[in-house]
């Protein structure tokens, strides 16, 4: 008897089960609530561009001028916020930033063309949250350069231009200054010899 004359009923049933599993997989595929709008490569470009930072001077201008719509978010904790903050700022501590209501609010602001400025006690604190906002598509979110500390200093007229990413020293010179005593045991740093392993290989090798 020819195999193909068999009625492939069981085959069809199994195949249908397989298809159902895959369709179920497709249907249950939950779309993540928040999606990255920037690729990692675009994020790299963002970090290199120095875009998105706002100096206290500029913030003052924006607040006093009537043309720009600005919202300020203070991401420090409530205690710190209570002790003093930029006038008009809204306190949302860092861990609450991505909560549903806040995202809705931010979306609303984005649609209405608001500029959002976030700040922490220093720039570091707000840096990460700002990057997350930018990566999930809030291109209207800016970070206050220097954070609250520097803002206060600016208010008290005790500061010069803020440039956190510049070298404060000529490292090569400073680090070598003592060698002038004559002894040169400051060997040039060895170049690293990292074993370049590929990440693959989590699976057990061996095979058949």
């Amino acid at each position, binding site marked *: 008897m*020819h195999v193909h004359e068999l009625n492939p009923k069981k085959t069809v049933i199994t195949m249908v089960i397989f298809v159902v599993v895959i369709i179920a*997989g497709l249907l249950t595929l939950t779309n993540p609530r928040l999606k990255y709008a920037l690729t990692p490569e675009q994020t790299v470009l963002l970090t290199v561009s120095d875009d998105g930072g706002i100096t206290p001077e500029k913030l003052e201008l924006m607040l006093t001028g009537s043309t720009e719509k600005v919202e300020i978010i203070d991401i420090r904790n409530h205690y710190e916020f209570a002790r003093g903050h930029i006038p008009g700022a809204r306190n949302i501590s860092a861990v609450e930033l991505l909560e549903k209501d806040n995202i809705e609010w931010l979306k609303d602001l984005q649609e209405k063309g608001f500029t959002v400025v976030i700040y922490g006690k220093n720039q570091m604190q707000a840096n990460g949250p700002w990057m997350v906002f930018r990566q999930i598509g809030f291109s209207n979110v800016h970070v206050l350069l220097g954070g609250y500390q520097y803002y206060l200093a600016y208010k008290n007229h005790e500061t010069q231009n803020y440039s956190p990413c510049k070298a404060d020293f000529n490292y090569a010179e400073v680090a070598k200054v003592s060698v002038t005593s004559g002894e040169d045991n400051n060997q040039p740093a060895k170049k690293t010899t990292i074993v370049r392993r590929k990440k693959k290989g989590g699976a057990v090798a061996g095979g058949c």
Partner: protein
Amino acid sequence: MGPLIPQEIITGQWDFVIALLIGGAFGFILEASGFSSSRNIAGVFYGYNFVVLRVFFTAMIVAMVGLLYFSYFGWIDLDLVFVLPTYLNSMLFGGFLMGLGFVIGGFCPGTSYTAVAIGKIDGIVFATGFLIGVFLFAEGFPFYEDFYTANDLGNITIGEMFGISNEWIAFLFVVVAIVAFYVTWLIEKRVRKNMTEYKFE
């Protein structure tokens, strides 16, 4: 989520129980499909029985498509799935020997186990020969150690090799498999007409 054992979701002695179960299902399917008979298997080379091709290709496309879907759903991390490393020279030679052994012996190791299980002496002889072959290989290993590891391409996938996505590869495999099923069906019908003495064992 998966694979479960490399991610240590299943640990301890359970993995051997699972090995036993998976192996058992494997043996059952092979035997039930008719792979315990060398004449069924060898039929693929003479056109009178393409059961090997059918089972083999169906299994391959189902697993391949399923694997890609599972990866898409995030159910399985493909980086943790063992991708057989490619050693070009050695594998070409190995494939050559296996093809020869296949057409002469009429079994492959997995099917010979099931043949042994149902009492086929030719299965026992094949399995013993297989064991001797592995032994001979290991004894002679120092002579061809370099050849064994030559032309190492690493854990390369078919898609990476040809520069197209693995989804396209899977799609091509499915199309080729289905065309092959149809063509072999035609061939089989023809060959069987002229072949009266053959019957399923």
